């Protein structure tokens, strides 16, 4: 029988650099999985599915998810679904689990985000293999070069400066300083960001995400299967994904996140959100490059085109503002691959349950937005509106 799907438990491990990490992938994932089950108050034997992901080439194997699952101690019979949508793998985990639950096929599905940026000695070289081969990769087009096209076009249209693009990096670091699970918890000034090593114009090193190791897990259940669990359930009110052309040259406009804007309209309609700025209490967007954040806030309808930087500068997106954005510090402060992409969903769920670490909890948060993106030139977007479901 079809059911609505809710989030009923999350687990998350503290993050660190690969160099400082002494645990294996399996150990980190175990910690997150058992953390989620404990948070939920669910026994492993009550699970009827696992959704996990990996990214080609990042771990010295494409079997990362497959070899992990059987070593978690969750039982031998558990069906496993494996996703591999590149940089959006983590963001798609919840969407697949929720569809399994909504269909009535499963009751309790565990989404597992592993530390997939862990192994590669030269991670940048591994990530760069995702730029379109044959026609664009031979042009020295790596990951952050692709990311740089957007702010470059945005500068041209709206007159933004490098210092303008630094505002989201500064704010995300401020937020990460309050998040005990974040990797980079240092604060930065605008000047620190602007004078950091130039990477690909107009981006500097401080505008690009770190390589982190951590894991997280998120339990998706039917409404019925959440009744006996401990946390206040978080309803997956609306969710969807969308995709753009594979080639960078197929983009229509680099000065706007058009693909995300189309997706947002669809998801807002499903969730009956008329005025996102007023109706959403907490936001986590996936912006591994700082300039993406203001552009994403525009595409999500929180600011007019060209208004994203002003919105961040106004203080509205800080913890004490009316639209707190990336209180986790976002991927600019912690990016562990699949775990990093699942993180927006994990953190928004924690906020709505009222179970976020005290220093970062938004009081009374009722409705949240979680977002993910990835693929060549941010080809894939995923988005969900989540709602706290008060118990009667």
């Amino acid at each position, binding site marked *: 029988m079809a059911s609505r799907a809710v989030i009923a438990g999350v687990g998350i491990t503290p993050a660190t650099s690969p160099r400082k990490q002494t645990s294996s992938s399996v150990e980190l994932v175990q910690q997150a999985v058992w953390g989620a089950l404990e948070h939920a108050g669910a026994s492993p034997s009550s699970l009827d599915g696992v959704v996990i992901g990996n990214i080609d080439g990042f771990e010295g194997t494409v079997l990362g998810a497959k070899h992990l699952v059987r070593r978690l101690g969750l039982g031998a019979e558990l069906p496993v679904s494996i996703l591999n949508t590149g940089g959006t793998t983590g963001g798609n985990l919840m969407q697949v689990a929720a569809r399994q639950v909504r269909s009535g096929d499963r009751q309790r599905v565990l989404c597992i985000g592993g530390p997939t940026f862990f192994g590669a000695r030269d991670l940048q*070289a591994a990530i760069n293999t995702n730029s379109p081969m044959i026609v*664009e990769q*031979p042009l020295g087009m790596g990951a952050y*070069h692709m990311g740089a096209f957007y702010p470059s076009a945005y500068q041209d249209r709206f007159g933004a400066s490098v210092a303008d693009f630094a505002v989201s990096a500064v704010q995300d670091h401020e937020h990460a300083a309050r998040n005990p699970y974040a990797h980079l918890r240092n604060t930065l000034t605008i000047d620190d960001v602007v004078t950091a090593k130039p990477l690909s*114009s107009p981006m500097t090193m401080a505008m690009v995400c770190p390589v982190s190791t951590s894991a997280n897990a998120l339990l998706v259940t039917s409404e019925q299967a959440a009744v006996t669990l401990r946390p206040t359930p978080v309803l997956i009110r609306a969710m969807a994904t969308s995709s753009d*052309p594979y*080639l960078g040259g197929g983009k229509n406009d680099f000065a706007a996140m058009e693909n995300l804007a189309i997706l947002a309209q669809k998801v807002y309609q499903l969730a009956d959100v008329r005025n996102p700025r007023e109706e959403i209490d907490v936001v986590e967007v996936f912006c591994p490059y700082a300039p993406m954040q203001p552009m994403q806030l525009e595409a999500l309808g929180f600011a007019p085109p060209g208004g994203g930087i002003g919105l961040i500068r106004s203080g509205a997106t800080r913890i004490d503002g009316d639209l707190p954005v990336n209180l986790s510090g976002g991927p600019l402060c912690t990016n562990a691959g699949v775990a990093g992409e699942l993180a927006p969903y994990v953190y928004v769920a924690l906020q709505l349950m009222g179970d976020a670490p005290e220093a970062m909890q938004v009081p009374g948060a009722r409705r949240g937005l979680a977002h993910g993106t990835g693929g060549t030139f941010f080809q894939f977007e995923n988005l969900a509106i989540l709602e706290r479901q008060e118990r009667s």
Partner: protein
Amino acid sequence: MTQPTITTQHVHWDLDYDVHLGATWGRFMHGLTERKILANRCPECSRVFVPPQAYCESCFVRTDEWLELPPEGAVEAFTVAWHGFRGGPTPPYAIAGIRLDGASTLLMHFVRELELSDPDAVRAQLPTGSRVRAVWAEERTGQILDIAHFEKV
């Protein structure tokens, strides 16, 4: 007291691949050997694709009308890479999304002959709309680098 332990083991991949281009990109690549930039057009919406694509994603139809585009166009977006990556070109280099005259999509390529010594001055080097022209490689083997780069007209 913690137990002595071994933390990591080294794993190395050394693999080569042949990617089959198919008829559409195969024809495009062959065109480059003859200094021709071939594109195709959607019969429904009339958009012109370069590199060409076998189907129009918007109209769900085959795009089998071919045309040759001039090797000239306008820059719509660009970045200067101050850092490259292993196996890539030596930085700094500029990569641009170029709207060839008559094309509906952008062709990504290098733009050379720019003054790239000062990061603060690069924007002025290639304002949006800058006209650029393809410079052909002496030896052409049917790959995107048969166009060596573009330079300002």
